[in-house]
């Protein structure tokens, strides 16, 4: 079931929570709403569910207007951040709740409900916990029961609010993979809220990046990472190294450091070049198109590559630069804290004044 949002607006008092949000979510997609806290992503999710009402705008499910429809009638599955399991009911009773409260004429008979609950418990691989109470479960188990409860009504739309936020890293990874499989198997449309970029990029077909009540960018994960539209998305998704300078012709300069752009520009202006860690190499000597002296500040050996934190020498950056090198390179070079080196950009993203999308630069 597709979801269409048309010009959704929502304010809490003077605070503008959602500012003219329009969004199209295709049937069967798994979409992540990603943004810092206060960006309005949870409010948007709650409006889709009907737990909150928009001040203005329309919501359509499969082309049908559901704006005026009560939560109860929207028939969506909703998974809460803190699970919201009914604490006085057993796991089985929790899962059966949606079926139990159906009006008598559409309610399945008791045996049928029991069978459905059994199936769902099997699906979340927790059949042995049917008689337990929520307070006797671990966080990961609670979350799976919450999912089973939401899926008991066979919703065509599943909404998840920070579904893995309260879990530790390992359980999180497991559950993420499990949700992805479940989604592919059952073909519902899912929207989940997260502030974890890794989670959003790994899990989603489409990522919606939000900030301050607006949508910054909607794209597939790879595209989003490779071609961010704005400084915000750049900053928010992964680390970025920023070089701030004054551009004159081809030369972008700040202090002792400079970068020579591949092509000539008109006039002098203040611009920024954003560089992803993997788009920069480190060398002991500067090259013809860049002179970016850095000093090794910290070395992190854990992971697939060695991550170096670097402090600019003779120029300034708001944040330390971060560049990854392979373990082989690291072993050959053997850098230590305080060693000097030079950054060599291969690809960069040039932001001019204003909020225009960046221009991608290629050297080499």
């Amino acid at each position, binding site marked *: 079931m597709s979801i269409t949002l048309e010009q959704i607006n929502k304010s809490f008092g003077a605070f503008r929570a959602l500012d003219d949000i329009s969004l199209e979510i295709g049937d069967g997609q798994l979409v992540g709403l990603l943004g810092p806290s206060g960006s309005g992503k949870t409010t948007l999710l709650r409006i889709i569910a009907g737990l909150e009402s928009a001040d203005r705008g329309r919501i359509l499910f499969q082309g049908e207007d559901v704006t005026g429809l009560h939560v109860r009638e929207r*028939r969506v599955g*909703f998974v809460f951040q*803190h699970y919201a399991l*009914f604490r006085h009911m057993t796991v089985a009773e929790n899962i059966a709740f*949606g079926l139990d*409260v159906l009006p008598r004429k559409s309610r399945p008979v008791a045996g049928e409900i029991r069978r459905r609950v059994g199936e769902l418990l099997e699906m979340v691989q927790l059949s042995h916990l049917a008689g*337990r*109470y929520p307070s*006797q479960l671990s966080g990961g188990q609670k979350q799976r029961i919450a999912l089973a409860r939401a899926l008991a009504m066979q919703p065509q739309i599943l909404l998840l609010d920070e579904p893995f936020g309260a879990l530790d890293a390992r359980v999180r990874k497991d559950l993420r993979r499990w949700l992805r499989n479940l989604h592919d198997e059952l073909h519902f449309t899912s929207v989940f809220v997260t502030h974890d970029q890794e989670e959003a990029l790994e899990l989603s077909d489409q990522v919606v990046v939000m900030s301050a009540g607006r949508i910054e960018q909607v794209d597939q994960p790879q595209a989003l990472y490779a071609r961010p539209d704005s400084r915000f998305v750049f900053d928010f998704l992964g680390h970025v190294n920023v070089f701030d300078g004054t551009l004159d012709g081809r030369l972008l300069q700040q202090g002792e450091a400079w970068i020579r752009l591949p092509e000539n520009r008109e006039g002098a202006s203040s611009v920024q070049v954003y560089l992803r860690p993997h788009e920069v190499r480190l060398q002991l000597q500067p090259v013809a198109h860049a002179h970016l002296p850095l000093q090794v500040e910290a070395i992190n050996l854990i992971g697939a590559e060695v991550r170096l934190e670097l402090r600019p020498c003779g120029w300034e950056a708001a944040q330390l630069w971060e560049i990854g090198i392979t373990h082989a390179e690291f072993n050959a070079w053997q850098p230590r804290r305080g060693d000097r080196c030079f950054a060599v950009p291969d690809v960069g993203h040039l932001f001019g004044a204003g909020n225009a999308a960046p221009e991608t630069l290629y050297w080499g």
Partner: protein
Amino acid sequence: MQRTSVHRVGEQRWVRWTLICLALGLTLLLLVMPLLLIFVEAFSGGAQTWWANLTDYYTLRAIGLTLLVAALTVPLNLLFGVFLAWLVTRFEFPGRKLLITLIDIPFAVSPVVAGLLYLLLYGSNGWLGGWLMQHDVQLMFAWPGIVMVTVFVTCPFVARELIPLMQQQGREEEEAAVVLGASGWQLFRRVTLPNIQWALLYGVVLTNARAVGEFGAVSVVSGNIRGETNTLPLHIELLYQDYNAVGAFTSASLLAVIALVTLLVKSFVEWRQARQRAPLHEQQEQG
């Protein structure tokens, strides 16, 4: 057991024993002795006299009126308390904080003052009382007035028990129930009520105890008509002033028994609440 070398505050033996003896002594002197004395006095003429006093016409009328007041007050305040707690914990509206503070007014105001206020409003010379008089409705110096002031005096008990609990539990479970299709009534009966049932019972027990025992406010609006508007506490005072000490203590013994039962129920409810908050961990091992 080895004695530890670290001395915590109040660890010395004599401090501990002095405090314990003091507490036990005071409890004996101020609580247990008077309680025993009530029964000793009540039965001083033998069980038969006690029974005769208890089944005295006016005493029976007083018991009846007291039960009526409690039977009306408790359900009224149960509804009011649940409604109020739901209102202030589930909705945001201007004046919400003020309302939470105002709930406590009946506790802050002396019951006598409350009684006088009602007399001023609903008495025959009062603002509303005059108009009611013209329509042949008498509230003061009759049982409706007694119920009104009792409701006022006991109205915070249920709400005060529920508000902190409902605030702590939040509204997520209720939202989950609505998303799953529960109607308003199903939501209340199957999710909200089970979550607050013990706190609710606790509030009801306290409300009932106070409704049965209220003296100050009731004495102002009752008019002390023997057999008509005398509740049990007022009746006791009247008997005592008539130099019928045994009769007074007989009725008092009845109130004391109610108090003891209340205490028992209250302890049971507290025990259940504690158990609900900390589910048994042994169960986890067995499962």
